[in-house]
C-alpha cells in the first residue's frame, strides 16, 4: 500500500517534472492559462448579452486547479496515444502498400509464418509497461484532485439538482439562490476554494463546468463532493451532463467569480428579505393568492414553496429558466404567461393568467432586487 503510493508519487515526478500540490499550483497556473485563454470563445450564447462573460465550456482552457491538472493529463495521454497510433497505423499502411498482390505475380502461396514466441512476448510486455505507467499517473492524479481538506477560508455550498434547474444554498451565509453560483476570487494570500456538497431532489444530474473541474453526479440519496478554485474573475458556463429527462438540454449552469468585496456585497444583499414596495402590492397579492406561492419562496412573505427557485432576489440574477433567457421584463412576461413556450416540458405549468394579471405579477417580480 505504502510502496504503491510512493510509486505513484515517483511516476508523477517523472512525468510532470514539476511539483504538484494542487492548491499551490494555482499561482503558476494563472500564467499558464493566459496563453490558453485566447481559446475561449466570447460568450455569445444569449442574444443581446455583452461580452463580459468568460466564454463557453472549453475543457482545454482550464481556469481552476482540478481542470488544470486534467488538462495537463490530457496532453500527456494524447501524446502517448498519438504516438501509438502513428506507429501502428504507419506500420499497417506500409505493410498494406508493400505486400499488396500485384497483377502479374507468380502463383503459389507466400511463406507461412505461424508466430514467434519472442515477438509475441515483446508486444505483450511493451504495452504492459505503458499501461502500468499510465496507471501510476492516473492513480496519482485521482488522489491529487480528490485528497484535499478544505482550508478555513473555503466556501461551502450545498448544490441541489432539480428537473431542470440548480439550487445553491450557502450554508455559512444563510443564502439560497438558483442557477447562478457566485464565488469569491482567490488572491495570492487567501485562497478561497469552493467546496460543493452535491445532492439531488429527483433524478440524477451532473455538475459540469469544464473550465473549473471535471464533472460529478448529483445523486438522489447520496451526498457527493467536488471542489474548484477559479483563478480569474468572470462568468464560467456549464450545464447538466447526465441525462435527466425532457429538458436536460436546458439545464444550464453559470458560475460567477468576483472579488472578495463584490462577493461580500452580494452576500449581504442576498441575506436581506424581499423588498416591500406598495406600488406593486396588486402583483404581490396575485402572486401570493395564486399557486405561485406553492412552489416558490419569497422571504418576508408567506410564499414558502420549495419546488421552484427561490425568487427573493430574482432580479439580482442575469438569467431565468436555468440560464437560457436573459432576465428582463420582456422575457419574464413571456415566461409567466406561458413557460412551456420557452422551455417545453418544464415543471412550471401555464397558469392561465389574464394579460392584466401577468403584467401585475411581472411588475412585482421586477422589484425583487
Amino acid at each position: 500500500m505504502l510502496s504503491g503510493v510512493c510509486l505513484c508519487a515517483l511516476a508523477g515526478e517523472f512525468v510532470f517534472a514539476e511539483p504538484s500540490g494542487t492548491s499551490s499550483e494555482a499561482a503558476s497556473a494563472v500564467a499558464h492559462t493566459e496563453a490558453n485563454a485566447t481559446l475561449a470563445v466570447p460568450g455569445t450564447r444569449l442574444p443581446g448579452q455583452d461580452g463580459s462573460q468568460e466564454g463557453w465550456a472549453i475543457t482545454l482552457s482550464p481556469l481552476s486547479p482540478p481542470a488544470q491538472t486534467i488538462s495537463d493529463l490530457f496532453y500527456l495521454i494524447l501524446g502517448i496515444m498519438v504516438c501509438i497510433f502513428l506507429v501502428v497505423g504507419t506500420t499497417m499502411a506500409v505493410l498494406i502498400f508493400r505486400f499488396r498482390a500485384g497483377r502479374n505475380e507468380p502463383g503459389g502461396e507466400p511463406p507461412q509464418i505461424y508466430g514467434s514466441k519472442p515477438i509475441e512476448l515483446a508486444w505483450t510486455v511493451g504495452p504492459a509497461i505503458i499501461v502500468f505507467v499510465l496507471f501510476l499517473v492516473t492513480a496519482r492524479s485521482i488522489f491529487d484532485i480528490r485528497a484535499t481538506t478544505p482550508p478555513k477560508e473555503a466556501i461551502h455550498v450545498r448544490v441541489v439538482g432539480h428537473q431542470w434547474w440548480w439550487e445553491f444554498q450557502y450554508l455559512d451565509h444563510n443564502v439560497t439562490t438558483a442557477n447562478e453560483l457566485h464565488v469569491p476570487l482567490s488572491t495570492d494570500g487567501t485562497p478561497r476554494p469552493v467546496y460543493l456538497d452535491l445532492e439531488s431532489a429527483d433524478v440524477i444530474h451532473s455538475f459540469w463546468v469544464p473550465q473549473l473541474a471535471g464533472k460529478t453526479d448529483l445523486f438522489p440519496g447520496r451526498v457527493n463532493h467536488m471542489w474548484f478554485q477559479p483563478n480569474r474573475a468572470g462568468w464560467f458556463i456549464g450545464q447538466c451532463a447526465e441525462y435527466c429527462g425532457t429538458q436536460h438540454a436546458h439545464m444550464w449552469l453559470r458560475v460567477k467569480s468576483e472579488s472578495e468585496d463584490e462577493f461580500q456585497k452580494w452576500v449581504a444583499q442576498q441575506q436581506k428579505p424581499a423588498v416591500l414596495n406598495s406600488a406593486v402590492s396588486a402583483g404581490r397579492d396575485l402572486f401570493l393568492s395564486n399557486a405561485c406561492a406553492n412552489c416558490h419562496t419569497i422571504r418576508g412573505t408567506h410564499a414558502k414553496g420549495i419546488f421552484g427557485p427561490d425568487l427573493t432576489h430574482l432580479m439580482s440574477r442575469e438569467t431565468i429558466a436555468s440560464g437560457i433567457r436573459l432576465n428582463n421584463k420582456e422575457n419574464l412576461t413571456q415566461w409567466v404567461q406561458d413557460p412551456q413556450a420557452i422551455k417545453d416540458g418544464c415543471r412550471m405549468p401555464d397558469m392561465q393568467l389574464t394579460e392584466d394579471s401577468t403584467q401585475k405579477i411581472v411588475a412585482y417580480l421586477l422589484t425583487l432586487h
Partner: protein
Amino acid sequence: MATVNSYSKSTTSATIPLVTRLHGWVSSVDHKQIGIMYLIMSFIFMVVGGLEAFLMRAQLWEANNTLVGPETFNQLFTMHGTTMIFFVIMPMLAGFANYFVPLMIGARDVAFPRLNALGFWLSFFGGCLLYYTYLGAEGLYGASNAPDIGWFAYAPLTSPAYSRGNATDYWILGTMMTGAGTIAFGVNLIATIFTMRAPGIRLTKLPLFVWMMLIDAILILLAFPPLTAAQVMLLFDRYLGAHFFDPQSGGSALLWQHLFWFFGHPEVYIMALPAFGIVSEIIPVFSRKVIFGYASMAAATAAIGLISVGVWAHHMFTVGMNDMVDTFFAASTFLIAIPTGIKIFNWVATLYGGRLQLRTPMLFALGFLSMFLIGGLTGIMLSVVPFDWQISDSYFLVAHFHYVLFGGSLFALIGGFYYWFPKMSGRMMNEQLGIWHFTFLFVGFNVLFFPMHIAGLLGMPRRVYTYAEPEWEIWNQLSTVGAAVMGVGFLLFFINIAHSLRHGETAGDDPWDAWTLEWATTSPPATYNFEEIPTVESRRPLWDLKHPDDPDSQYE
C-alpha cells in the same frame, strides 16, 4: 414436415407456392435458415435505427434548431441506442454464429435446434414489442410515445414518478425478451462447440472465429441474467411497490447502475469478440497466410473474457465512488488493453510477407483494424479517471463508443457479410459496388464521428436535443454531412445485396480459396451440411487438402 431448402436458388423453389415457402422459413429449425433470419432481422432494424440517428443529426444541424422537440429527440436517442445494440449488432453476430459455427466445426446442426428457433423468435418479437410502444403505450404525449430514458435507463428516471405511461414497460419487456432469446443462443452455442465437433477438431484446432464465439457465448451467460434480474426488479418497483431503485424509500439508484453495467460492459465485448473472430478469418485468407500467433490470439480472447467482467464501474467514474474503487477499475481497464493490443499486433503481423488481395471483405477488415485502433486508444484515454471526469457524458464519449461499436464491430460484421455471402447465397456480391460501399462508409464514418471528439472537448454534452453555442455548430454540421454520406453507402449496400441475389456471379464452393470447413461444402450447403462428416487434422483443413505435401498439421 417437408423441409424446404428455400435459401438456394434451385429450380424447385419456383414451383413451390409462396405460402409453403414462408411456412418453411417460420417453422424452420435449420441453423442456416435461422442464421439468415437473424441477418434479415438485423438489416430491418438497422434501417430503422439508422433513420432515427439521421433525424437526430438533422436536428443538431444548427444551434437552437426546432426540427424535433425535446420529447421526440429523447425518444430517438433511447430507441437508437437500444435498437442498434439489441436488435442490430446482437442478431447480426448471432446470425453469423448460427450459420457458420456448425459448418466450421463440421457439424450437421446446432446442439438444440428447437431452442435455437425459440431464441431467434424471442429476439425478433422482443424487437417488435419494443417498437409496438409507438402504438401501444398510452402516455402524456398522445399517440406517439416511446421510452425516453436513454438506453441504459438510469434509475430513478425510470420510476413511475418520472416515466409515466407504459413506454418504459415496453422497453423493459422488449429488451428482456430479447435477452432471454440471447441466453438461449448462448447456451446452444456452448453446447454445440463442446459436443458437436467433427473428429480431430480438438479445442486447439478450432478456427479462431469459433474460439471467439465460444468465449462470447460464455460472456452472454454471465452478463445477460443480471440484466434480466435488474429489469424484473425495476418492474417490481413500477408495479408492485418495491423500492429497489427508489432512493426516497431507502432504495438505491446506484444499484441499478452496478447491475446494468455488470451486463453493459461485458456486452461491449460480446459485440466486439465476434468482430475479432471474423477479422481473424478474413485477414489470413486475403493475405494468403496463416494467422500469426494462433495460441496467443486464443489466450488473449480468454483473457479479455475474464477481465471484461471486472471493469464495469469504469462507466461510473463520475458517480462519486471512493478513490480506491476508482483506482481499481482504472487498473482493470488498463489491463484489458494488453490482450486487445496483442490481437491488433497479431493481425498486423499476419499482413507481413503476405500477398494481400484487397477485395471488399479485406477492405472492411482493414477498415475495422484502423477504426478499432482509434476507438481502443480513446478507450485507454477514458480510463485515465480524472480525464474521464472531464469528458464522460460528452460527445467525446459518443465518438469513442461509435469507433468501437460501429468502426469496430459493425465494419467487421459487414466484412463478414461480404465474405460469407457467396456461401449463403451461392452468388458473389458485386465487387465494384462493394468498393463504393466501403469508400462511402469509411469516409462518411470518419466525417461523422471524428468531429464528435472535438465537440466533446469543447464541452458539448451528449443527449442534448439542442445547443446554443455557435462554436459547436461546425462540428455538428460535419457530423450531419458524414451521416448523409454514410446513408448513401448503406443504400449501395442494400442495392448490392438485391442485385447480387439475382444476378451475382455463381460462386462455387470455395470462391476465396479459403481454408476452413465451411468452404468444403456446396454454396449454399445442403440441409445436412456435409455428405460425409469430415475428419480434420489441423486448424486449416482445406489448406491440408490443397497442399498435401506441406500440411499445417506438422507445424501445430
